[in-house]
Structures are given as C-alpha cells and as structure tokens.
C-alpha cells in the first residue's frame, strides 16, 4: 500500500483548508451557486435529487482496514449509515450536508484519503485491476504506475477545465478486469523485447451515448516517457476537443472525428516538444513508489488443501474465490449483490466487518472492483472457511460472482437527477427472478448491466445483457441489448428492438436466457452463444 509522505499529506490538508474556505464563502453568499458548482464538483460534491452526494476517491480501488473503517465512520456520522461502492472503484454517500463536508474531508485526510477530482471536467480517479499484485497473469503490479499518474494528475493546472471528464485505467494482464478499453485512456503495461516495462496506450474509449472501444495509439511508451506522453495526449484534447456540445465533448469523439492516425500524429508531435521540457519524474520516483507495493510476507509453506465438505462453502469457493499467484493463498471476492439488495450498497456495520476481516486474513488490504464488489486479495487457503463463516454472518457471502445476479446498476431515478428511469427496482426484480443459485450457475458467467439513462454509468453497453432506462412519453421504458463486453474480448452490445415496461424487461431477460440454454454448445458462455448464433433467435423469442 502506498503511504503518504509529508508532501502528499500537505497537499491533501491544504485542499481541505481551501474547500473549507470555499464552503464558507458560499454559505456567506460571497460566491454564487454557479461559481461554487465547479469548485464542489472538482471535489466530488454533487447536488442530487434529495441532498448533496459526495464521492470519495479510492485510488486504483486499493485501501487498508483503517481507511475502510473511516468509510464506515463517515456513513454513520454524516450519512444514513450506509455507502454505495461505484463502478469507478469509489464510494459515494447520498445524504450529505454541505456545511459538514469540510469536517468530513478532514476526517478522510486523517487516513490519507480525499475526494479530489472525483467529479468535474478534469482527470478523475485512476482505476485499475482489482486483483493487482495477486493475479497470476500480470507482468507487473500496475498500481505503482497508477499512483504515479494519480500524483501527476492531481491539481494539474492545464487540465482542470477539460471539455469533459477524463478517466484512466491501468492494467498489466492480458485478461482485462477493468474495462480498460472503455476508458478515455486505457493503459496496458507490457514488456518489450528487451524485457523492459512500458505502457501501451489506448485512447478514446468510452461509454455514454456514443460508446466506443479505444484504439491503440502507441504500443510502447517507456516508463521515462509516461508523463510526457500523457501530457501530449491531454494537451491535444484540451486544445481541440469539442466544447460546443456536451454530448460530443469526450475525447472519443475527437479521436473519432480526426481519425486515429491524425490524432496520433498530433500527439507524437506534441510529445516530441514536451519531451524537451524535462517534465518526467526521475527514475527513482517510480522505484520509490514501487517499494510500497511489495508482496506481503506470505507463508511460503502454506498448504493448498481445502476442505470442501460443507456444500454451501463449496459453492461459495467455486464461485467467489480466484487463483492467487502464491501457492497456499487465494483471492476472495465479497459480493455486494445479495438477492433483493441494492447493488454496491453496504451498511457501516458491513464495512466494519470487511475491514476487520481484511486485517485478520488479508494482510490489511481490500480492493473495490468496478463491478461494485469488494476483494480480499491475499487470503490463506486454510483461513477461507472461517472467513466465509464470518462473511455469512454479516450477510456478505452471496455466492454469485459474475453470475446474472452480480449485476452492475447505476443509482437511477431513485437518486440521480439525470435519470430517465429507475435502475434499482429492475435489478432487484431480475435478481429475485433468478434467485435460485443452481439456476444461476446453470447460466454461468453472465454480466448484466443496467443504466438509468443514456449516460451509461451502469455500463449497459458492456453487458452481455444490457438494460437502458428511457423515458417514453412520461413512462419508464427499458431497452434490452445483447453481446457487450468490457473484458479482453471487448465489444459493444446491440439493441434487440422495441423496449419493455418494468415487468416486461424482467420477462425479456428470462426469455433471452432461455434462448441461450437451448442454443448453447459445449461450455459456451451466454455471450459466446450470442456471438455464434446472432440476434435472430433472440429477437424471435422476445417479440413473437
């Protein structure tokens, strides 16, 4: 885990003081709501339907138990005793009082956390692979690179008023667990022929109303050039990205309109110039950061044996536990998708439990995933059974990772002022329809994602099954789409046809899964069958 030094701490503390001053000026009427808006927005504070919503950054989704406990404390002290983990690996609170936010931020700063740039048209929290440092298939731990980019992008003066928000993801495996190519900049760390680490840059991916898969603009950026290259990518965007239409302002539109080759040419030219300015950090800085991400002190003689005689435990292990790079250890996923619950929500008591379990069983580390679950990355296999029992007691042992009820759903009309339709009740109804674990396991890996409007915070374009809430003459209506993926087999889902009402969409999902069960060959997943047989049989079942 990264630890702040005096510089990191002084920057975060100064920001708390600055925000306190800005809130005071707002409350005193010295600045208007219009002038205050971009200030609070760059600090993660949104005015929502009912109250202020505050989003707290969890850089690359990694935190320790002390930080996790602080998140529980904030839920208790400033909110209604729960928090909502988001698809950006962050947490947000829905019921915050403006005058209390400076104190809340001071509490966060005391455990090296902040809400800096969690909203607004700036570079947002950097996301990464939730299994970083534990995955067997990574070429390196991507988090030091993500931390370097976090520092570089924090209060970057040139890129604080971009045409639109800007999201980075950094991964280091062939398997993409972070939807890397659906980010404004996706970085995959690779080794070149000389064995050196470098960054493969994909620019211009994104969801929203015009989803796009980011094309590769450079197959290898050396560590020493990382910051300069990122500066070049951003400067071309800041100067030439569209500002006339908010829906065409993301970098994906610029890359698309210029064409990948022309955008790349401009970036390379800018990079050549920026490289002369000596802006990259010294080599020793990435090395310094890397020392914070060393392997924990594994028991190298730990046994791989696992007693699976308890059938409920066996189901949980089969579904939620993943291979660790160290023998004798495993990656344990905690699902925040209990049947009938709100995807991604956790109470302060549950957050405390997860913090305590991380401390006891996972070298004090937790991760937040973009699928809105929590990971204990380094659990000794011999501890798994006790861990599972404790999770079960806290209602945290739902064995549904990557199954249909492990869905992503945005807050939708229950909270969000931009929504056209509710997402949460639809998610709950679908989960109830498929509540039987056996039925879910029969369907296998099936990523279902729901957004309450075209902004696509619920990643519906990347769902094997995607659902989009729209407003049809004042009535909530749901469009169904099939065949998307945010993983290494990245693709965008296609709409099946006319939309459905709330109950109709639940039936439609079930019909689509029935088509899959009938058509599938061998061990095909839902999305594989869809890709092979195409839309026709699904359409037939849905609309006849």
């Amino acid at each position: 885990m990264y630890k702040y030094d005096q510089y990191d701490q002084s920057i975060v503390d100064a920001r708390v003081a600055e925000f306190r001053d800005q809130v005071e000026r707002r409350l005193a009427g010295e600045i208007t709501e219009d002038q205050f808006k971009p200030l609070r927005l760059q600090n993660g504070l949104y005015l929502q339907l009912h109250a202020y919503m505050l989003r707290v950054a969890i850089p690359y989704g990694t935190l320790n138990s002390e930080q996790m406990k602080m998140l529980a404390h904030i839920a208790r002290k400033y909110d209604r005793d729960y928090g909502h983990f988001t698809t950006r690996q962050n947490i947000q609170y829905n019921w915050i009082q403006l005058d209390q936010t400076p104190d809340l931020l001071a509490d966060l700063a005391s455990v090296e956390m902040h809400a800096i740039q969690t909203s607004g048209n700036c570079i947002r929290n950097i996301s990464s692979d939730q299994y970083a440092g534990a995955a067997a298939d990574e070429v390196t731990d991507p988090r030091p690179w993500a931390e370097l980019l976090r520092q570089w992008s924090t209060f970057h003066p040139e890129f604080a008023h971009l045409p639109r928000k800007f999201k980075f993801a950094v991964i280091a495996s062939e398997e993409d667990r972070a939807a890397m190519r659906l980010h404004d900049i996706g970085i995959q760390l690779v080794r070149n022929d000389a064995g050196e680490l470098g960054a493969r840059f994909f620019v211009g991916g994104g969801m929203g109303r015009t989803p796009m898969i980011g094309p590769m603009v450079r197959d290898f950026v050396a560590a020493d050039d990382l910051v300069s290259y990122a500066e070049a990518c951003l400067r071309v965007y800041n100067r030439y990205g569209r500002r006339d239409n908010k829906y065409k302002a993301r970098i994906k539109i610029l890359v698309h309109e210029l064409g990948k080759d022309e955008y790349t040419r401009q970036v390379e030219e800018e990079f050549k110039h920026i490289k002369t300015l000596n802006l990259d950090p010294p080599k020793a800085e990435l090395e310094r950061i890397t020392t914070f991400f060393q392997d924990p002190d594994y028991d190298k003689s730990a046994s791989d044996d696992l007693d699976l005689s308890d059938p409920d435990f066996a189901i949980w292990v089969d579904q939620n536990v993943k291979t660790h790079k160290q023998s004798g250890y495993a990656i344990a996923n905690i699902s925040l998708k209990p049947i009938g619950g709100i995807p991604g929500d956790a109470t302060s008591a549950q957050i405390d439990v997860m913090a305590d379990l991380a401390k006891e069983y996972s070298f004090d580390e937790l991760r937040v995933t973009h699928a809105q679950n929590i990971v204990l990355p380094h659990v000794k296999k011999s501890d798994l059974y006790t861990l599972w029992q404790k999770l079960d007691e806290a209602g945290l042992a739902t064995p549904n990772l990557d199954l249909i009820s492990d869905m992503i759903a945005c807050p939708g009309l229950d909270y969000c002022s931009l929504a056209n339709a509710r997402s949460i009740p639809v998610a709950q109804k679908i989960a109830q329809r498929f509540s039987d674990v056996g039925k879910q396991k029969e369907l296998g890996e099936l990523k279902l994602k729901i957004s309450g409007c075209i902004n696509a915070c619920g990643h519906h374009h990347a769902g094997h099954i995607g659902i989009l809430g729209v407003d049809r003459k004042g009535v909530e209506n749901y469009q169904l789409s099939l065949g998307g993926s945010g993983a290494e087999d990245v693709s965008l889902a296609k709409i099946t046809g006319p939309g459905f009402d709330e109950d109709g969409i639940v039936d439609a999902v079930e019909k689509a899964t029935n088509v899959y069960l009938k058509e599938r060959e061998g061990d095909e997943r839902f999305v594989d069958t869809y890709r092979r047989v195409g839309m026709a049989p699904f359409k037939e079942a849905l609309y006849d």
Partner: protein
Amino acid sequence: MTDIFSLRDDSPVSEAPVSIEEFLGNSNATAVRIEVGEDARQLLPNLDRIAMVEISFPAFTDGRGYSAARVLREAGYDGELRAQGDVLLDQIRYMHRCGFDSFAPEKPLKADQVDAVLKRFDAVYQGTVDGQNPVWNLRHGN
C-alpha cells in the same frame, strides 16, 4: 477598461491588443489578443516583438487558454501574459502555474484573497512553466 491585476514587476502594458490576424498582417502592434480556440503557436515566430499577450476566457469552464499560455511560455515568451474575461479567484492559481502573470477579470479581485490563494499550496505534483520544483524532484534531492 477593467482593472488589471498584475503579479509582474513592470507595469501592465496599456496598448490595446490587436487580433492575431491583424498582428500577423502589417502591424506595428506589440500587444496581441488570442481568442478562445485560436492557435497560440501562430505567434511563435514573432515572440520577440510582443510585449503583451491577452488570452480570453469567455467562460471560466473553457480551459483552452491554459494550454495556450503554456505553449507561449514553453517557447520562451517572457512578456506580460494576461488572462481576460471570466477570471475568478479560484482559477488564479492554475492560471499562474500555466504562465499567466496578469489578470483582467470582469469582476474585480481582492489583492489579499489572491495572495492567500497563491500561497495556499506549497507543494506541487507536476512541473509546469512556473519554476516550482515538483515533489518528485524534491523527494530525490533534485
């Protein structure tokens, strides 16, 4: 004319700036105004005959002027660089870090508040054109 708030030692240029087009034509002007969306690099061949560049901010949310300012400073321009328009207290620090050293805000700024804003952070994460040494150099004694 609005009050000019300057961080420079010399006094603000009083000549009214001309457009880039006019400047690049047959003009003796030494002050130029860059409208939002215009390419600051057009001025690079003639930086030695410019005493003041004014960059417009029609809305503080439009950040193109920050890149324009850096482009000029990175090319060695050391004359007055003025931000004009929707220039607000809370953007001054970023503007200063991108090379602006004078401000013509539509609504006047208070000197003591500007001073406080500029002093608020004493560490920065990234190098720009303001000469501040980023923490990743300080950490390694550079």
